[in-house]
């Protein structure tokens, strides 16, 4: 222990010096940032009206070519909020100021955040000129960059990238389904044919995601393929659940039989729930027997969902619920609660 003081004193001094340096830097950063923020706020206040005059057509793009860099922030902030000609004008400003070219060059930058931000910027401009580069970034070593590239592709609106986006779900450097889903949704209805194909021939992940997106789009032509996916016992559970939910969103009464069968006989409670919920959305009175049968399920979630679905079918489903509410057995509680939920201002409407 007596050997310690020398090194300990040295280390203490070094650490103390580091602490002092760090705290002084914090103070310096604090002051500098406050000044910078004030300066930028003043510049923004000065430049924003200029951008509006540009949109009005009283200024030209070239007149803003030499404006301070904070103008780019103002333009990029406004860009996603605008459409049509106004958006094109702002895009031209970014091109004229070299922002787009710099971003394109940054797609191969060393720092991941530079690549990611560049991809996002190119996506925000809505140009499909860089789709190929963005598709390449779907295999980037950084997950953040891959996500940024997918989102940018969605914003840019090039439907040719749909197969690449779906393939990225299962590639070695794969993307999470949520990111790909948001990008595909951004592409809009032009992506639907590719999604229909993916539902039938894609990987399990691609099929599940495609089913979900087709449902969100309310794509009626996809009903047969979705029904087939639902009925196929060999399909992965996630695909069948997504197909059931999609059929409900589409509101396809022709899928009622398949959904009813799954709601009653499906082994997986989550699948039965999805089917029951879909039947409620479709609202076809022919499905009431299946939902009533589902209310005898051992699983509480299935019973509750079937009851909610019946409550959504008016007036036949609610009539049936009223009968069930006065009966004995596990269905009665769920029936009372479901009826109460649709009568929020008349609680406990059904006296047992």
């Amino acid at each position, binding site marked *: 222990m007596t050997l*310690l003081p020398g090194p300990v004193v040295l280390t203490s001094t070094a650490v103390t010096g580091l*602490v002092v340096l760090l705290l002084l*830097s914090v103070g310096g*950063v604090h002051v500098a940032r406050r000044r910078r923020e004030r300066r930028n706020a003043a510049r923004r206040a000065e430049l924003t009206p200029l951008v509006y005059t540009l949109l009005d057509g009283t200024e030209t793009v070239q007149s803003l070519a030499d404006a301070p860099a904070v103008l780019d922030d103002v333009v990029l902030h406004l860009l996603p909020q605008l459409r049509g000609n106004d958006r094109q004008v702002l895009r031209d400003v970014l091109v004229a100021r070299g922002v787009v070219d710099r971003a394109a060059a940054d797609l191969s930058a060393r720092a991941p955040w530079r690549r990611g931000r560049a991809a996002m910027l190119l996506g925000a401009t809505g140009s499909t000129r860089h789709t190929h580069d963005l598709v390449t970034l779907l295999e980037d070593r950084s997950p953040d960059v891959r996500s940024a590239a997918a989102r940018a592709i969605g914003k840019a609106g090039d439907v040719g990238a749909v197969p690449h986006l779906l393939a990225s779900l299962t590639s070695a450097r794969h993307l999470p389904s949520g990111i790909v889903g948001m990008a595909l949704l951004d592409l809009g209805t032009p992506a639907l044919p590719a999604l229909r194909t993916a539902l039938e021939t894609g990987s399990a992940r691609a099929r599940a995601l495609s089913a979900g997106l087709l449902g969100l789009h309310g794509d009626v032509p996809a009903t047969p393929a979705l029904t087939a996916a639902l009925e196929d016992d060999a399909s992965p559970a996630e695909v069948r659940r997504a197909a059931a939910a999609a059929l409900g969103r589409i509101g396809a009464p022709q899928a009622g039989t398949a959904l009813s069968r799954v709601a009653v006989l499906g082994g997986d409670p989550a699948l039965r729930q999805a089917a029951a919920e879909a039947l409620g959305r479709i609202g076809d009175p022919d499905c009431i027997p299946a939902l009533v049968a589902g209310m005898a399920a051992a699983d509480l979630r299935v019973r*509750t969902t079937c009851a909610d679905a019946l409550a959504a079918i008016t007036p036949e489903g609610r009539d049936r619920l009223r009968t069930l509410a006065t009966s004995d057995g596990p269905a009665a509680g*769920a029936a009372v609660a479901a009826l109460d*939920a649709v009568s929020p201002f008349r609680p406990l409407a059904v006296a047992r």
Partner: protein
Amino acid sequence: MRELLVDAVFVANWALLAHVALFHLVTVLLVLAGARRVWRNRHWRGVEGHDETFASPLTPAVSILVPAHDEEAGILDTLSAVLGQKYPAFEAVLVDDGSTDRTFDLVAERYALREVTPRPTADLPVDGEVLSVHRATTGDPLTVIRKTSVGRRSDALNAALNHARHPLVCMVDGDSLLETEALLQVSRPFVEDPDNVVASGGVIRAANGSLTDRGTLLEPRLSRRWVVRVQVLEYLRSFLLGRTGWADAHALLIISGAFGLFRRDVVLEVGGLDPLSLAEDAELVVTIQEHLRRNRRPHRVVFVPQTVCWTEVPESWQVLGRQRKRWSHGLGQLLWKHRRMIGNPRFGPIGMLALPFFLLFELLGPVVELVGLAAVATSLVLGLVQPAVAGAVLVLAVALGVLLSATAIAVEEVSYHRYGRGRDLLSLMGAAVVEHLWFRWAHSWYRLRGLVAALTRRTPVWTAMPRVGFAADPPSDRLVPVRP
């Protein structure tokens, strides 16, 4: 006899030194990892896509669960913040857990509650009796469950889980204020990776002293009390650096009960919250990870350093002592319950890194510190160590501690800069030094008592913290700092 004592003291001194050195080494690595992550995140600010998440139909709905026991001081502010979330689809489920004050009356009046038929969606065991279920008639998506208290927060949360309807559940304390975009930020990992993410947590900060108005925190400020300032610093170190570092190492053990988001089906699969645990938040995270690893199911537990929930921290030593004792007791319970995971490579970084760290440094840390302090004092009395040596080692230990705090302050200022007033930063810097004068030793004492309670298997007792609230009296005089 003297030789035996000398040998014992010698061993204790070296053990202390080794413990301190190892602790600081691990902590510095964690801090560096956390600082690196925060620094990287800084570059992505503004392009996270929160607006897209808000607009996306793929964003899952969330049930926000708020257990409340005698929270009349701040419950309306908490609910205002919860119901004011910028999020596409959510509901709030408040559990009035046997409050003896006006918690329920205030909520019933503000939201014009009406009693409805209970509509359970799960059947987790709940010890307290559910007395009634109410729904807001003001158009707010609020359900209130009244139940008898059994003195456990976990019981209230399990009751809320039984009535939650959405695929994600967010647990929020009854004395917390969520920032408007908090839910949107913390749910982003679920939106982006719905197949793998099972839990996500955000940053908790101390609200004491800040300017608030009807559940909105207008300006973060520091309290005038040093006991609060030191806790602010603790929270900064823990959330900005510690948890970010653990999350980067895939070894995040704790998602704070004050603000955490979970996949509801997974929580139900593990049987909800452990009814007997005093650290039910950490317990839930460990149980989920143990369950999923045993079943070889892919999963991710994520920490989002941007998200902020403001909460009240204890303002008196007595309350702080009770809280820290409870935490230590809960940690002891957790480590005992999951002892088979400790050092077990089957459980990956959680088993090999996080649990051993928490055992060695968090649970046993106070024992080593206090025994070591006694050994140093004995060494000085026996003349085994020169005062200069002891002093130098002490100064080094303090300097390292202050360095960690200074790093947290630097990261806060560079990346988030929530404290706009220079004097608040100065106070934080002061707290970094003050902490080592007395707070640290008192803290060790409280933790030691918690450890003893865990070792003696004392009956867990959840004691509610007295609340100050977020608004001052009278109500018309809003825009005032939280007392003091």
